[in-house]
């Protein structure tokens, strides 16, 4: 496959991102930072240590990861819907020599890039306002979660943006499916808080592997290869599904 189309569309998306980078970052940092200040610092003295770590440190990896995957999902879903249903740019791409797969891969890459940039931005801000410092080695291993995690949510966004024609449906899916998946994956509490009968189900979720694995490596320095593999395999499957669903939709 020649990826000239993927590169051209991704470069276009990056040009748009560059033009609005300040406002994008301010908007994307505000939400997790508010949560961090309210829960991590405001409630720290009431909660104390969680799994042996201060609460503000406990939730930091999850907030960084949440920012990244939410940004990846939101960029993919809204960008694809807007270009398909409002601006009809997808149609204009399709009458050029590039393939449908090149278009969808470009959009997945864009969502992924948004996720990584915005996740890193939130990470830098949290590091700037807290005394916690993570070893470089841990940060490197953390990328083994952040990269496939962003890719997974970018693909999920592509699937939503492809199959949903109404913007209100996109909002509902985010409220009913995406955010619960993120929040119930132990973002603000340890998985041990779940009843024993539920834990195995929660652990089977790729989001749990992502958030739990990210926290383990960043806070405790424990690499969980099975969790990393689970996120990567989920991302690969989501990628295959996203490309297939988009191709099917375009063929209709």
């Amino acid at each position, binding site marked *: 496959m*020649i990826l*000239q189309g993927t590169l*051209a569309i991704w470069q*276009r998306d990056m040009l748009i991102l560059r*033009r609005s980078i300040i406002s994008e970052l301010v908007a994307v940092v505000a939400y997790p930072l508010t949560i961090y200040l309210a829960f991590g610092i405001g409630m720290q003295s009431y909660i104390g240590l969680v799994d042996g770590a201060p609460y503000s440190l406990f939730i930091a990896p999850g907030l960084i990861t949440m920012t990244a995957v939410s940004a990846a999902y939101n960029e993919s879903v809204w960008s694809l819907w807007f270009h398909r249903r409002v601006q009809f740019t997808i149609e204009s*791409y399709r*009458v050029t*020599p590039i393939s449908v797969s090149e278009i969808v891969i470009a959009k997945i890459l864009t969502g992924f890039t948004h996720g990584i940039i915005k996740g890193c931005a939130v990470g830098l801000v949290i590091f700037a306002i807290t005394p916690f410092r993570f070893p470089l080695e841990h940060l490197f291993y953390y990328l083994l979660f952040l990269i496939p995690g962003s890719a997974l949510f970018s693909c999920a966004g592509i699937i939503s943006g492809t199959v949903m024609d109404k913007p209100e449906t996109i909002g509902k899916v985010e409220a009913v499916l995406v955010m619960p998946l993120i929040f119930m994956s132990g973002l603000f509490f340890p998985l041990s808080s779940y009843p024993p009968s539920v834990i195995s189900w929660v652990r089977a979720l790729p989001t749990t592997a992502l958030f739990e694995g990210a926290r383990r490596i960043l806070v405790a320095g424990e690499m969980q290869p099975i969790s990393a593999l689970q996120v990567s395999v989920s991302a690969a499957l989501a990628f295959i599904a996203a490309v297939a669903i988009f191709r099917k939709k375009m*063929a209709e």
Partner: protein
Amino acid sequence: MPTSSIVTSALTKSYGSLTALDSFDLEVDQGSIFGLLGPNGAGKTTLIRILTTLMRQSSGTASIEGLDTLRSGREIRCMIGVVSQENSLDRYLTARENLELHARLHGMNKKLYKGRIDDLLELMGLSGRQKDFPDTFSGGMQRRLVIARALVHQPKVLFLDEPTTGLDPQSRRAVWEYVRSLAGSMTIFLTTHYLEEAEQLCDRIAIMDHGRMIAIGSTQELKDRLSGATVYEIEFTGDGADRYATLLGSMSCVNNIAQIGNKVAVTLECWECLSEIVTALDGAPVRRISLQERTLEDVFISLTGEKVRE
């Protein structure tokens, strides 16, 4: 003998029980401007989507410049330019960036497309606005930009799907000028609801309805095909129109008669009947007798009916 640029044979497209295209046969000569007319839902957009490889037919074949649309989609898309009904400009890119993106999607290198884009912006009168975003453009300017975008890679076949819908008369005429200026350098396939547009621009016109071709030919051929009948409008002075309308209506060579005020429109079997009419009107207070030219709209309505389509 001109070579065919676009050929369809028994082209059929069905959506469940609905047949949008029904055994559609068509040949469009290279370098010509071909117009496709039809009421809403006639199948025009389906046909254009198949020809531009956006959609696969249910059966039959379609080819562009000898390449099959099912087997050679990428090659065909290299040589076609498409101006779709929707204004598909990227509102987050400037006019120039819109053209540059299109050039990159066609795999053109910067050296090649830079000069080409300069020329097109100049040709379309958009050079001074190339750094502005399309949202700040008038409808006519946006349309010209879409046409420029479709021409960046120098296509052999240009598809224009209702290119002037929603434009004011001045902008519409400007687009016509650009299209005319392209005549001969590429094949142009145009769909439109504006019959005047088809009449002004097209070498040949096809009229389709319910997925089928119902007429094809030059504007004059289509008008001639309407019927041998000729319509004259006779304007009377004073109040004698009623009496003479009754008299004319009783004549065997008059097929139809319609009266509005002191004007009477008579449909004759053939123009030779006019002398009988003139004789019958001897001494009548006639102010003017004028031949009513058949318009393409008359042809269109006679072939597709007057009923409004959903």
